[in-house]
């Protein structure tokens, strides 16, 4: 009796304003409120609101049957509070139906799990509290930024009391096993739900690609693909950005019609159902221990963390930022702590990615900068100001030009 487990990621960063070397020491206002408000409203109108209406409609048409999970970063919820309260209200209505599970993540959609355990735990707790305050629910299942995950992170997540975690079903980690089962982490029993990346990416990336042999993708065709899992798996993890609906795939591509069709056509096959992650771990037994010896993410063909720290610019920026953690905590100033953590949002480092070819197009599409070099310069200027002018931490001597 297989099930589909939908999880949609909702996130928008606080983008930086254009910040120049000459601003260092003079201006401590880092975030582009105008741009962030405009982008959020655009995404709300093109994606979140129409998609939420569709989801509400599906929940009503398939009562008790259509269910799924959201993960909302703290920073996107903050921005909805400020710039699009109607969008936040519509997410709250969806959660209130009981058909939608809210997952845990880091409040700031950060890479803290790769740098500082203490900071990571703090941001996850802050997110849980914020979800409780906003939606009245406490997350039981965790998903890390961009599905970044390995065995070490499993221990941190288990210690925070989560029941399960979402991860990428990377081929090398599975080593021939199927992504369509519940697994558990070595030693600690934390349950793992995996993304079926082929079926997920068919929707998220390939849906409107005219050069794809399967184009156009219809709900009937997709249901047939899902049904191949019958007898060979318990659940299909369809994990994707929520912006897939209306923003990455525009309404004109027919993505909303596809979404509208799919649940009804799948539920016609009586053995099939939809499940939330929390339900899935009670319904399905673990198929065994699955170890993630390397750090996996859902990004790019490498499915590793190279999109955020694959080059020296990214590593330098991240190291400079995390080197300030003690100073930030010593100052214990809520405004400064918040600014420092907003700078940790993974997007700032994604914009510096130089893997131009193949994966590069996707990076370019999501970046507000003309080049990764400009993204680096802008972020470094901000970090310099934060370090020298705000915290009063001296910079190391200049490296000698080579």
């Amino acid at each position, binding site marked *: 009796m297989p099930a589909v487990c939908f999880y949609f990621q909702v996130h928008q960063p606080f983008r930086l304003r*254009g910040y*120049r*070397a*000459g601003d260092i020491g003079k201006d401590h206002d880092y975030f582009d409120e105008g741009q962030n408000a405009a982008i959020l409203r655009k995404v709300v109108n093109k994606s979140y609101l129409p998609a939420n209406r569709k989801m509400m409609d599906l929940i009503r048409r398939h009562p008790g049957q259509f269910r799924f999970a959201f993960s909302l970063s703290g920073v996107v919820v903050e921005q909805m509070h400020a710039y699009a309260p109607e969008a936040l209200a519509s997410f709250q209505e969806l959660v209130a139906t009981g058909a939608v599970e809210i997952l845990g993540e880091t409040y700031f959609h950060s890479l803290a799990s790769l740098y500082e355990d203490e900071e990571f735990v703090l941001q996850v707790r802050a997110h849980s509290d914020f979800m409780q305050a906003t939606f009245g629910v406490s997350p039981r299942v965790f998903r890390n930024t961009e599905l970044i995950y390995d065995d070490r992170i499993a221990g941190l997540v288990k210690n925070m009391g989560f029941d399960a975690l979402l991860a990428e079903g990377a081929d090398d980690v599975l080593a021939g096993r199927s992504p369509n089962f519940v697994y558990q982490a070595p030693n600690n029993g934390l349950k793992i739900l995996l993304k079926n990346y082929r079926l997920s990416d068919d929707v998220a990336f390939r849906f409107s690609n005219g050069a794809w042999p399967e184009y156009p993708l219809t709900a009937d065709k997709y249901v047939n693909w899902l049904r191949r899992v019958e007898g060979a798996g318990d659940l299909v993890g369809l994990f994707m950005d929520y912006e897939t609906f209306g923003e990455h795939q525009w309404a004109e591509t027919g993505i909303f019609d596809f979404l509208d069709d799919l649940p009804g056509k799948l539920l016609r096959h009586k053995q099939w159902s939809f499940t939330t992650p929390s339900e899935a771990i009670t319904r399905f037994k673990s198929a065994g221990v699955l170890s993630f010896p390397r750090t996996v993410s859902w990004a790019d063909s490498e499915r590793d963390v190279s999109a955020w720290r694959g*080059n*020296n*610019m990214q*590593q*330098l920026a991240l190291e400079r930022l995390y080197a300030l953690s003690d100073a930030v905590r010593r100052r214990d100033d809520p405004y400064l702590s918040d600014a420092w953590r907003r700078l940790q949002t993974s997007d700032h480092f994604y914009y510096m990615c*130089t893997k*131009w070819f193949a994966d590069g197009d996707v990076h370019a599409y999501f970046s507000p900068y*003309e*080049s*990764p*070099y*400009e993204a*680096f*310069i802008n972020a*470094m*200027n901000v970090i310099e100001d934060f370090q020298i002018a705000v915290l009063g931490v001296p910079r190391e001597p*200049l*490296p000698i*030009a*080579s």
Partner: protein
Amino acid sequence: MLGWEYPPHVSGGLGTACRGLTVALAQQGVEIDFVLPKIYGEENAAHLRLVDAAAPELVARQGTGRLNFAQLGVEFHEVPALLAPYMNAEQYREVLHALETAMSTASTAASDHPIAKLKAALASASVAGLTPSGSALAALPITPDTGPSDVTPQFVPDQYAGDLFAEVERYASRLASGLSGDWQVIHAHDWMTFPAGIALAQRTGLPLVVHVHSLEQDRSGSGCDQRIVAIEHAGLWAASKVIAVSHYTRNMIHRLHGVPLEKIEVVHNGVSVPQAVEAYRKDAQWTGPVVLFLGRITLQKGPDYFVAAAARVAKLIDDAVFVMAGVGDMLPQVMAQVESLGLSSRFFFPGFLNAEEVERMYCLADVYVMPSVSEPFGITALEAMSYNKPVIVSRQSGVAELVRHALKVDFWDIDQLASQIVAVLRYPELRQAMIASAGDEVRRVHWDAAAQTVMGVYQGLSAGAGARVGDSPGGG
């Protein structure tokens, strides 16, 4: 192919571009007769048959008959009273020579001062025939013990004087009356060769391709010499096909001369990748990082924006050094700007550099900045990239359309330019990331690609109706 200069005797990018393009074309099996106004005997061009327009047999055949520009469709609507703001080629060469001489003979500390060198150079240049006049340089607050203070020459903003036009006309006449060969296409580079191209095409009935490396508008802005504009116009309309070095130039040709866009093909320039010569860095006279400007010091190139940005950089990077290599009508003004900012000790003005000195300078630089106000292409940016240097280019340059692994900035945005320079100097991680990708980029836009496109143009012409010389609608 009709050219005006060829390495090593080059005054700008034109000769270098002709070499790069012809080498790549020759590799694709194209046989090229390359005609120059004069051959110096130092050209190394085994892939070409170099033709000297000053060769006795051509001069003899030219006889006494002179070519009339009007016969070629060139109409001079007006002769402007005011003059194009840069030197003619002859004056240029003399100043260069004088400058080089002055620099090589300078020995005392006082005469090492860049302004002293320039003054000395200009003094000898004036002896060599330049008219001393003006006061901009005299007004410079230079250190007291430098240079001869009684001579205060300045580049005279003379138009392309009679002798350059005469040279253009002479070149055209000799080719029109004396030159023959087994050609299929006539390919003329920039306006100096257009009259010759038109004349040859008229005589032979062959299709004419005119190749625009830069327009008078780019070089001089609103101070255009209308005679040059008229020659450009005639050439553009007489041609069966026009080649432009960038989309920027293509649009400019369309806008200024009304040439239909479909007649203009874009062929981006590329540069050969020289073997990096790191040895230069060993005997560098500067300890701090070097920010390089290399080009004519004239309005089009934005030298004043470079200085303004440098002033901001100097405050943030204590030991940064700024090198402005080149000469031009704005050099005195730029030097005055540097003096008044109190930055004389941070700036170096080595004057015009020959090919070897250019190479050395690229090798010494830590970042190359091209803040051009208007730049049809900007081959120097690719040159700098080929020397593994991070590059900052203005968005107002043709090359900005082409390269991704460079920083781009609006030329007027001095704060942003300064911020980019500071970052490149401050973060080796940034330099290394840019350089790593830029090398591939330079190779990708190599001349081979340019030659492919030019081949396509040639093939289109031989497949088409052939010459359509002189069918201009009212352009003359």
